[in-house]
């Protein structure tokens, strides 16, 4: 995979993670499942690439993590949206919306 595609993917992945966590705090596997649901299996990336993305978002302060016990008494790391992340999400969502409107307009115009 070339480098440009990787960067685009990173951005999309980050956004999807934030969106997922907006609904409720989740651990890594849960986020992966949720993203799959959202994107209709479109994003064919190995789920392992989730973890570097999570680390990146952690470092930027957009999400926070803590270890919790799950239902079956196992230790798992849960991720939660931070206020900074919430703001980022709102901003990104807005710009996505704007660009999709533009894309739609273009499509409509040419149809």
């Amino acid at each position, binding site marked *: 995979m070339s*480098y440009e595609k990787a960067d685009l993917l990173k951005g999309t992945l980050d956004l999807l993670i934030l969106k997922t966590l907006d609904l409720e705090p989740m*651990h*890594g*596997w849960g986020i*992966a499942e949720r993203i799959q649901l959202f994107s209709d299996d479109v994003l064919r*990336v*190995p*789920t*392992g*690439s989730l*973890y*570097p993305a999570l*680390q*990146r978002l952690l*470092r930027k302060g957009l999400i926070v993590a803590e*270890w919790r016990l799950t239902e079956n008494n*196992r*230790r*798992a*790391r849960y991720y939660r949206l931070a206020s900074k992340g919430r703001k980022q999400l709102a901003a990104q969502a807005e710009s996505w919306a704007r660009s999709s409107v533009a894309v739609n307009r273009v499509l409509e115009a040419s149809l």
Partner: protein
Amino acid sequence: MRWIRRITHRFRSLLGRTKAAQELDEEIRYHIELDVKKNIDAGIAPDEARRQALLRFGSIENAKEEVRDESGVRWIEDLVNDVRFALRGLRKTPVFTAAALISLGIGIGANTAIFSVVNGVLLQPLAYSEADELFITYIAWRDFNGPLSDADFLRLSEMQDNSASFAAYNLDDFTVARQEGPEMVRGAWVTPTMFDLLGISPLVGRRFSATDEYAVVVSHGFWQTRLSGTAEVLDRSLEVNGDVYSIVGVLPPGFHLPRITESDIYMLRRVDEPPRRGPFYLRVIVRLPEGIEPARFHEHLGSVATRTKGLYPAGTDEWSYGILPLKELVVGNADRTLYLLFAAVGCVLFIAIANVTNLLLARGSARRSELALRSALGAKRSRLVRHMLTESAVLGVLGATLGVGLAWLGGEILGVAAASFLPRMDAVRLDNRVLMFALAVGLFSGIVVGVVPALSVPWKRINQDLGTTGRGGAAGSRRGAIRRVLVIAEFALALTVLLASGLLIRSLRRMQSADLGFEHEGIIAFRLSLPSDPYESPEEFDTFFATLEQRLMGVPGVSRVGYATAVPPDRLGMTNNYTVEGQEPGPRGAQPVSPWLAANQSYFGTLGIPIMQGRTFHETDRDGEPGAVVVNEAFARFHFPDETAVGKRMKSGAWDATRPWLTIVGVVGDAPYLGIRRGDHRTVYVAYRQSGRWRVPWVVVRHERDAETVIPQIRGEIVALDARVPMHDISTMEQLVRESTSAGRSLSSLFSVLAVVAVVLAATGIYGVISYHVNMRRREIAIRQALGSASVAVVGHVLKEGLGLAVFGIVLGSGGAYMLARGLRSLLYDIGPTDVTTYVGTALILTATALLACMVPSVRASRVDPVTALREE
């Protein structure tokens, strides 16, 4: 290696790294477990479930690595790993490593050595406290700067501005009475506050105090070698020049007055109101502490000058006081020579860098499959480049370490050689700044050396090279071009250094074989210090010398004796300003200045200085008779180009109606007094008996026998005449002449060493490149031979290529070589920077070297067995 691992582990857990790694591990395991569970619930068999889960996850190691990547501290780990890998790699290829390290070591070492000299001589402050507050005060008169007089010093010391402090010194030779006889000791007279001013505290004892009368402070060396070396020396006395002085202190080792390397004793001088304006002999140091503004200080100086002029109205008043930073006085013109040396070692460094770059390029082709593999495993281009640069940086740092070692080893020799043409060599050492410099040069070299090979890798297509041996192709030719350019550059640089060295060697040769205008074989020269009692009286002086001459002539083997205040080639005592009748400079004009010496009548004959016109001195030229003066040819040519100088008149010193006329009675051949390199100067000789009796004359003795037998006999005669008169500075004229070329010798030796190193490195470089080239083209050569091309033709073909590079480099380098040569101009004797013979000579030498270096690979090329070569793949 285990202990390293333990330490890094501890370090990492300190940072919580291990814990983080464990947690990530757990997290990933949990993730996969959940996936497996999901698959099993969906009805898949457990083994298949696990396999699918792992597939879905992707590479676990990759994920872990990328998480580590994102955590930001990765680069330190990477660096450490790269360094370890690099060291291992270097160990595995010892030949390459040795070659690279030797090249870099030599290049960096030479630069470090020269930088240590630059540091010590130019950059370090002088060895006095707050040395940048120290200035030397002088009198500026027309374009003549000179020392001060007692009157000046007293007026300056009385200056209103109390924060500036003055102290003065003047050099002298002292006769110290010792058990074995009188000994001549070099020293200085200093005013009481001198050591305070310089911030020097004595090692033993104290400085001069307000009540001291006859006091002396001795140097550390003198204390150790001539005195007891213990504290008991204090308050003991020393008989100097016939008077008794008490020793009050010993100075710390390594101290000396500015520009004075030898000074054993420091005599207290209190400056009293002088009867007249002159003489001018004091060197006055002033300390201007931080707060003082230079502008205001200059005003003060101006008002002091006005006061002095008022107190001594006779004489000109067109002078003023000036100050110069003490360091500038000490360093003088040394910076120019140092920059030239620096340029030369810089060339050597770049040749070494080019060589190592070529080595890395050669090694690089072998490693491309490794790079391709790493890239396929997911390493990004920037990461691989970082890896290669780290490797070459490690090479650079190791080279720097070797270089520092070489610089240290060669430091002694360099110090001795350089001391003949540079001041302050005692301040030169390998201190922190120098080590930092070596490290910086090492890193710089390492990175430069690595950048070119790193850039030459065809990154876009690297994956295609997996499995190939990486020969040929577009990238191969790009690398070949780089190699050729590097060889050309090496030869250009080598020419520069070789030319500089060639010019210096030829200049030295010319200096050594120049006709100096006087005899330098079979002449002994020495100095006598006559004590003031009784030799202050001219009659006593004259009687002494008349008797001495008689007795010395009686020594077997001695044929002539003479004396004067200076001897050639560079032992000049004094210069003087003068005016020739009819050539007075106007009120604004500058007076001519020339070397000025007093000589007796037999001086010229003893030294073999020929009389060209008129006569030299006679018995009749003594006190009370009209002043007689002898000039040299250069003087006559300058002032009287179309007529004879004999009979013309002149005056010594400032143009003053009351001063006596001097008449030129003769013209003698030119002889140097300011060193051979400065060439011929106008010189004026006055009769010894008409110029006050300077009591420390040089005596020259022409002899036919061995100096070793004659000198003790001369000494015996002098002692017999007056045991209190020490004979010192004994040497033969041959030695003096040789010493006067020692600076030229040292400098040309240094440049020659650099030139040899440069040429050897360049030869190694071209050898390597041509060898590689031949290796690469084995098939082509084999085909040629199989098709019937003679070995000679093959050899010729390879040689032509190699020589082509060398010659191109030489031509290209001529420009740079000329620039460096121009910088040398002031150091050259009788030869200019555009000397064609030297250019041609050095070009030929380099070409011949290239020829030799290419011989071996080209002959090897012709021996390639076509059959085996063609069979190779």
